[in-house]
């Protein structure tokens, strides 16, 4: 049991896919200007990685190793099409915000990375846990970045004004606080992730590169 729980807990911090393994940054940063989009993106990746890992793990003995990349891509692409259609059906506005980035889950390096590194060599249950763990690790970073960017950028969380009304000057705004619109621009996502990495590595010296 201890071994299995490590599969989920490790990627959350000390072996985080984004900040330590540097995987899956591609589709992660552009959509973190709002918390809601970050959460939906995390859930999509959770689904694709969890199910995909199980499927690949079940097929691991029949996939010829020469064409495994194409097989993996087809599995991911099918799962992503499911996610895309579900989003379009139940959250159309949000699927517009996410635009091509749902499709880009296919080439999210976390997914291919976990297929290659774990699912091809382990049983379905452990692969499932590994998929869930890594997707959670990815989601945690996405949600932290989304939280700070939305809070500092537009003063809202999930669309609810938590710092008061900027037009009527209530709450913090009465004290002269202003929203930092800069946080909503895409470059700030990179800088926020950079700062998260800084904080994490200052706390855990073993992670420092030379």
């Amino acid at each position, binding site marked *: 049991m201890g071994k299995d729980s490590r599969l989920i807990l490790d990627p959350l911090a000390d072996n985080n896919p984004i*900040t330590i393994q*540097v*995987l*899956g*940054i*591609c*589709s*992660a*940063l*552009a959509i973190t200007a709002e918390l809601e989009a970050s959460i939906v993106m995390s859930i999509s990746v959770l689904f694709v990685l969890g199910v995909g890992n199980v499927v690949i793990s079940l097929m691991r003995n029949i996939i010829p190793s020469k064409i495994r*990349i*194409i097989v993996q*891509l*087809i599995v991911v*692409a*099918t799962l*992503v*099409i499911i996610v*895309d*259609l579900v989003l379009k059906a139940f959250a159309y506005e949000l699927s517009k915000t996410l*635009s*091509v980035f749902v*499709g*880009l889950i*296919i*080439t*999210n*390096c976390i997914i*291919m990375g976990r297929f290659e590194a774990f699912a091809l060599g382990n049983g379905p249950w452990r692969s499932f846990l590994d998929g869930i763990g890594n997707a959670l690790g990815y989601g945690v970073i996405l949600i932290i970045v989304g939280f700070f960017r939305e809070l500092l950028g537009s003063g809202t969380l999930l669309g609810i004004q938590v710092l008061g009304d900027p037009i009527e000057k209530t709450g913090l705004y009465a004290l002269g606080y202003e929203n930092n619109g800069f946080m909503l*621009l*895409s*470059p*700030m*996502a*990179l*800088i926020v*992730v*950079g*700062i998260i*990495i*800084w904080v994490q*590595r*200052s706390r855990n*010296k073993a992670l*420092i*590169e*030379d």
Partner: protein
Amino acid sequence: MEHLELFFKSIFIDNMVFATFLGMCSYLAVSKKVSTAVGLGAAVIFVLAITVPLNWLLDQYILQPGALSWLGEDYVSYDLSFLSFIMFIATIATMVQLVEIIVEKFSPSLYNSLGIFLPLIAVNCAILGGSLFMQSREIETLGLALNYGIGSGIGWFLAILAIAAIREKIRYSNVPPALRGLGITFIITGLMAIGFMSFGGMLTGGDEEAKPENTSAAIETIKEDIEKVEEKLISNIEQKQDTNE
């Protein structure tokens, strides 16, 4: 003109790395040395120039709603666009494999410099992203699609070249230990992206869009002034008429 505009737009304004964060994984992983960065960048230009036009053809004649009309009347109502992800990625994976085989056969020297990067590229988000953006921006002709592919490839090449050069130099700087490596690269990329945002007004003509509003507002105020003057004149005339009577 249209071509030139799209070309510059895809290199600078919609730069793959700085505006949309595509291909970040290989951008961060392969940017430690300038020479390898050049190899990967060239391979990306090459593959984008092939896959974007190819996927444009697929999109135009197979996937779009009504695209199958060339098969006959019965097929006009078909909409296969939900298949685009799987079709695009399959095309890309096959093309990369094909390019690898062809290059290995005909130009071993090019294969030696590009070859090791080609398999990496199949799962580079920049390549799939190029095709998906091509689809969502509704690029009109095959020529423009080719142009878009090459342009975004060059944009990506420039980005990885720049960061590789910076990373080679920054090794001699005194970076806080916890920021060394990945952290500082993220922050530099963020700063470069802010720099690239200044290209935003280069072609869109932000002024042109703002002008009509300004002029129409100005015309409105002038009209109001004229009306006021007219009212004054009329009242003056009326007063004079009154006094005359």
